[in-house]
């Protein structure tokens, strides 16, 4: 079958005129790191753009993770991961407030189950203190159980700065605020070639045949970062995608977890072990697993891992019922360590001496989300060596809107909103109680992203227990009314993922109710 929905998505990005575009800084990759860098640079009078191969920001690892802010005790002192994680964590309160991103400082218990684990916790406490992690405490069973009733074990490391936040809202918030402050976003543009220009700077070609020039390139391509720097002749790196699978549990179980509860980490494990993570939106995640893959775009879920997750989840939370599993998904870690080595390597963040104006970021796996604002500051300092950064006098750090969804507001505020705007009175997504106005806000997002996943990550529609059975027909109607979408224009996420194939019979103008 041929799908040709792509054209619907091209026009919004071409609003800045015709290619070729010239920028001071071109960021390759619209994940949380690329968006954080774009937002940081938008504080300055510098022409910045992000090129992203997907139809929206954050579709790679950034929206496919636990949504946890790490405290920073798991990383060797002196490494970038240790430094950037602690610094990034400390920057998050202000950032989330400005960008209207939900964050909850719920703290974490890393629990010892045996003597080996206890030794591990003592080591982690010392390591965390050395890294400057605030408020770390080793606590006994009684204290653990005042934080989380029912948790087993005699010793835990309590880290109050461990938190949860919405990874979608953060990535999108960074991008939209950067856009508001002058950064350009070119979505659906997959970089296929990078060459040094004759004079200075770089020329970047994309799969659609467009080209961009820039003084400075920032490689923030995540899972594809080795491939991207390879195009520029940097052959030193390899990325090993390592998949983590999750289950999402029904909100029925909301409130079960007061804190993050992790097992003590095992040596050379590629992840932090399967655990339960509450999300800021009220679900619980089981996961993530850790499995090395060849294909960085393989977001499948495997039978044996799903079975493991269900078994582990049941052990950790015996109250889970079959109907509580509402979805499974996976995300891939951009690891620099091959399966034979395991564990983690440090982030690479380098201003290449051999390639003037090429800033290279690789292996930004966990704690990449936490570190993102600190990475952005570090990259800004590197950019400053190549481009003059004068403050942008019209920079506005605040994003419009609210961190809370309509359904989370007190009744009186709901009543007021509906009185002002009747579209708040119509519920489109029944499970998550998302209003028509919130859907309209999501589909009219400034980035021009209009896939179902774009709406889902902004407005939560289809993320509930019916997984879109109720709201998708309604959203389809809204998209038709707002943009004249044909059925085949409505995409799940990628350009070749149409949800529908056409009309049942020829559509007549005005025939719909």
């Amino acid at each position, binding site marked *: 079958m041929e799908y040709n929905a792509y054209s619907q998505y091209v026009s919004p990005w071409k609003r800045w005129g015709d290619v070729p575009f010239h920028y001071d800084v071109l960021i390759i990759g619209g994940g949380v790191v690329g968006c954080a860098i774009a937002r940081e640079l938008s504080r300055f009078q510098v022409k910045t753009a992000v090129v992203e191969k997907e139809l929206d920001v954050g579709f790679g690892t950034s929206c496919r993770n636990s949504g946890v802010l790490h405290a920073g005790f798991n990383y060797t002192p002196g490494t970038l991961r240790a430094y950037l994680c602690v610094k990034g964590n400390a920057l998050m309160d202000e950032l989330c407030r400005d960008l209207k991103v939900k964050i909850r400082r719920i703290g974490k218990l890393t629990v010892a189950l045996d003597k080996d684990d206890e030794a591990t916790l003592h080591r982690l406490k010392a390591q965390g203190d050395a890294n400057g992690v605030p408020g770390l405490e080793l606590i006994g069973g009684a204290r653990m159980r005042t934080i989380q009733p029912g948790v087993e074990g005699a010793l835990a490391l309590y880290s109050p700065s461990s938190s949860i936040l919405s990874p979608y809202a953060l990535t999108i918030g960074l991008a939209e605020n950067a856009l508001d402050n002058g950064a350009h976003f070119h979505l659906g543009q997959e970089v296929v070639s990078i060459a040094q220009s004759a004079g200075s700077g770089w020329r970047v070609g994309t799969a659609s045949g467009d080209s961009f020039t820039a003084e400075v390139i920032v490689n923030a391509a995540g899972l594809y970062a080795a491939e991207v720097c390879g195009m520029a002749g940097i052959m030193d790196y390899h990325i090993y995608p390592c998949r983590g699978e999750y289950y999402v549990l029904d909100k029925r179980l909301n409130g079960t977890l007061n804190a993050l509860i992790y097992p003590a980490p095992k040596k050379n494990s590629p992840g932090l072990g399967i655990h339960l993570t509450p999300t800021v939106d009220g679900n619980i995640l089981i996961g993530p697993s850790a499995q090395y893959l060849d294909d960085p775009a393989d977001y499948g879920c495997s039978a044996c891992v799903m079975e493991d997750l269900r078994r582990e989840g049941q052990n950790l939370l015996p109250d889970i019922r079959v109907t509580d599993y509402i979805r499974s998904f996976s995300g891939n870690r951009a690891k620099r360590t091959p399966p034979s080595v395991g564990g983690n390597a440090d982030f690479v963040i380098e201003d290449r001496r051999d390639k003037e104006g090429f800033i290279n970021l690789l292996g930004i796996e966990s704690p990449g989300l936490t570190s993102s604002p600190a990475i952005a500051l570090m990259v800004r300092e590197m950019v400053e060596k190549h481009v003059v950064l004068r403050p942008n006098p019209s920079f506005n750090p605040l994003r419009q809107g609210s961190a809370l969804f309509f359904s989370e507001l007190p009744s009186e505020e709901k009543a007021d909103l*509906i009185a002002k705007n009747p579209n708040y009175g119509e519920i489109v997504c029944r499970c998550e109680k998302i209003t028509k106005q919130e859907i309209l806000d999501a589909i009219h997002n400034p980035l021009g992203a209009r896939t179902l996943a774009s709406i889902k990550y902004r407005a939560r529609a289809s993320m509930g227990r019916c997984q879109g059975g109720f709201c998708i027909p309604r959203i389809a109607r809204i998209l038709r009314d707002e943009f004249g979408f044909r059925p085949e224009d409505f995409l*799940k996420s990628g350009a070749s993922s149409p949800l529908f194939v056409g009309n049942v019979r020829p*559509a007549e103008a005005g025939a719909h109710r």
Partner: protein
Amino acid sequence: MNEKTSAIRTERRDVVVIGGGPAGLAAAIAAREAGCRDVLLIERDRLLGGILNQCIHDGFGLLTFKEALSGPEYASRFIARFDELGIEAKLGTIVLSLSSDRILEVSAMGGYERIEAKAVVLAMGCRERARGAISIPGDRPSGIITAGAAQNLMNLENIMVGKNIAILGSGDIGLIMARRMTLEGAHVQAVFEILPYSSGLPRNIQQCLNDYDIPLFLNTTVTEIRGAGRLEGVKVAQVGQDRSPIPETERYVPCDTLLLSVGLIPENELTREAGIVMDAVTSGARVDDAFMTSAPGIFACGNALHVHDLVDWVSVEAAEAGRRAALFAAGEKNESQRGIPVKPGEGVRYSLPQSVSGEEDFTLSLRVTAPWRNRAVVVRSGEKIVARKMARRLHPAEMMRIDVEKKNLVGCTSLGVTLE
């Protein structure tokens, strides 16, 4: 949002029915006919009729009207009566919360308000089980959709969801959609059912599959989803006695669409929020023979109470719930849930109501655990048989009803329902 917040408008009503599908309509009509002059029906859609609006096939009303009506035709008969009685409906209105003392918060384009009701009838219907609940491994492409959502898109939105279809699960909506999609030019490859029997009605197997040469593979399930953007195909395999796939039997079925018809779940978020005691098997509220839940004055009926096979029974049951709600609102029957427990036993998946007063005749609804021939459904109080009904054919897809007379309930303290 710094301006001062206004007080929320509050109104008092006698009977409030939540849901304007077949159950809500029948309940509201019966409440009005029982003498309640203040009945309010709340429906989130812009028109009455609920799921019937998208059920353009026939077969509705064979028991009630002795006619094979389409869904909209069946609904229109009730809507006509509803209008004739002058019952008020708030359309495009959703109930956002319900408390056990019957205070509702509702939201509509016209405003947000609070309603204090003397009696409430829960008639929210059911939703479809989605993919998460059945955990199919593999990719996550587009083209996987529940059968009811596909029906809504095709029949109400003129949207074709796919051309080359596989169907997982033999629930009735999946069977109906197999025929519907075939008639609209799609190729329906097969229906795969993990159980050794169909979970749809026999008449739908005949009229929707056999008549169109669509094969039904029993003891077979989908083991893997494949597709990068759009669905490209599924792997299917036969399952053993323990319902786990037999690897040697695995085969690949190319398709662009997978319809899921793997069960319905009563919609009871409001019910749970009100702290009402639920039944783990039906996923609906536990009710007595007046269809009253554990919260006095809150009644439940229709597919929100338990998933029905035929809409006719929904209407019958909901009418009784509506009548009881009217009596409660009038203060005539203002007691709490009644006490003789009714428990399902051997061969019975569930029975309903879960408790009875013993002071009135009642009808027991039940579903069996597996297909049987020539069995009796027996209701006992200890050793004493209080009701018995022979059936030549019993099927999990079909609901069974058995009448119990109060004269047989004298002195009984608990009832058991078994298949013998």
